[in-house]
């Protein structure tokens, strides 16, 4: 048995007794491998006695699940109303320029830091009151 199927098997075993186990399983698989690819979908479908179409339908619905892993560091920048009101659109180019091809700058719709935006997230770290310089620095250090 490959490593991957072993790990996915363990994840399924950890959650399959839950009521509605699919999302907890997908969250763990995404965290472990950086994606839920078709191979993983097939394994999960088999483990939960679902069709692959059922699992794929769920995976493709949610923004958090990716079909292939991207090894680049990710900076999530909030682009929702409150951060727009605080000028995120004026500094987003600074982030993109600093990122180039090395870092992935992706939008996120609200980190709940709406009184202190523009806000961003790297991993589980949050950042507030960003300006063009600090967001560029954040991206460079990502």
């Amino acid at each position, binding site marked *: 048995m490959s490593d991957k199927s072993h790990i996915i098997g363990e994840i399924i075993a950890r959650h399959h007794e839950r009521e509605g186990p699919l999302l907890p399983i997908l969250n763990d698989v995404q965290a472990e491998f950086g994606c839920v690819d078709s191979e993983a979908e097939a394994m999960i479908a088999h483990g939960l006695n679902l069709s692959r179409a059922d699992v794929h339908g769920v995976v493709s619905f949610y*923004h958090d699940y990716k079909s292939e892993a991207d090894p680049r560091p990710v900076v999530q920048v909030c682009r929702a109303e409150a*951060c727009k009101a605080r000028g995120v659109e004026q500094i987003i180019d600074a982030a993109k320029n600093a990122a180039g091809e090395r870092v992935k700058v992706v939008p996120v719709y609200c*980190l709940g830091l709406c009184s202190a935006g523009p806000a961003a997230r790297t991993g589980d770290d949050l950042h507030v009151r960003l300006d063009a310089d600090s967001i560029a620095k954040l991206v460079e250090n990502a």
Partner: protein
Amino acid sequence: MTIVKISDDALARAAGADKLATAFEAKGCEVQRTSSWGMHWLEPLVEVDGKGFGPATLADVDTILDGSSDKGIGEIAAHPFIAGQTRYTFARAGKTRPLSLDDYKATGGWAGLERARKIGSEAIVEEVKTSGLRGRGGAGFPTGIKWDTVRKAEASQKYIVCNADEGDSGTFADRAVMEGDPFALIEGMAIAGEAVGATRGYVYLRSEYPDAIRKMNAAVDLCAEIIAPFVVEIRVGAGAYVCGEETSLLNSLEGKRGEVRAKPPLPALEGFLGKPTVVNNVLSLAAVPHILTEGGAEAYKDVGFGRSRGTMPIQLAGNIKHGGLYEIGFGVTLGELVNDIGGGTASGRPVKAVQVGGPLGAYIHPDQFDIVFDYETFTAADALIGHAGVTVFDDTADMLGMARFAMEFCAEESCGKCTPCRIGAVRGVEIIDRIAAGGRERDVIELAPQMHNTVKDRGRTVAEEVELLTDLCETMKFGSLCALGGFTPYPVMSALKHWPEEFGQK
């Protein structure tokens, strides 16, 4: 030893609270990580002997300790921003350590649950009805009536589901509860369980809140014995805004695509896994422990305005000088909130617009600032309270751009189940783009001889595009299955109504 209190709320941490805490510890202080007072512009706020200093940086550590700091705000509890509030749900904010069971119990924790267990299910529901509590998630449905429906339903299993999928921009009160007072939410769920005869509860928490996830999981472990036989489990979402809609949330919880379900059947009768389910917002459930204390329901009811009883934790966000959490009884005017309490814009420029209720809320013009916070008043003004997020924009805001964003957001986040939302939102973006471009020329198909109804000698004017947009918004408003498609017209139409010149209108 000097005791220093610094919040461990996500916003304070993002603003540098952790480093500050370490620096104070290095100076030999005892640092207590408490919840946030909610004065976000002062975070990280350092509290020594009840006096506050903020926003503090590492350079302020020495001056705060020797008393020469110029960042002092005096007695925190006496600060006008705090003194003006009526804090029921956020009574502990700034005062307790979120994960300390001792702190929770010492400040009246579990009293509501103990009393609920004594008085029994029918009396609990009566108390909630007496309090006049209405769902704080946005719809404002009376919580007591919802609970009663579930209580009376016959089933082998019932559920309490807490909607903690706080995706609306400009709102953070749910996060503040979960990070600052997690036991209060869990107690509220346990009381709900007691009221309706449910033994299992789920908190559906969005993945964008890593700190809240960590704290809620820890809190559930810590108080498992206290709430037993009631069991609470934390479930993390996967980045779908629409899962904040209750039926979509239930589907997601069941491990399905987060598509909206048609109602009826109501979740109260056929909810999670087809069983009777109470789905309540974090703020509704967190208000319950206070209501269930002796005399709590009456006290809660005595605050408020019209049919909106109790307090609302209002979130002041966006371009506002004094942003943060402000819990007050219904009846406060928008102008007081934005200008007096919030201090106007952070940029110092004039206020242009205020969006109340998140991405689906209407943009309100400063001319309407005398509007009071009350469900009915807002509905009458073609606006909604929603989750009571107040996002302020200064005069640089591009209202056509914001209207376009509302449609774009709806298109991006639509679950795809109903047509007005799925397709209407895409068409909405296109129409707004055409308005911005000043109308458009006729296309090849319209010019074809078979299309005998089209005017051929001129293009489509901006006025005609605006009419089309209005018509589309009507369709979305009345034809969509849930609030996402149904309320997206609010920001669009309010922007069009109050700032017509930005849409090429006179």
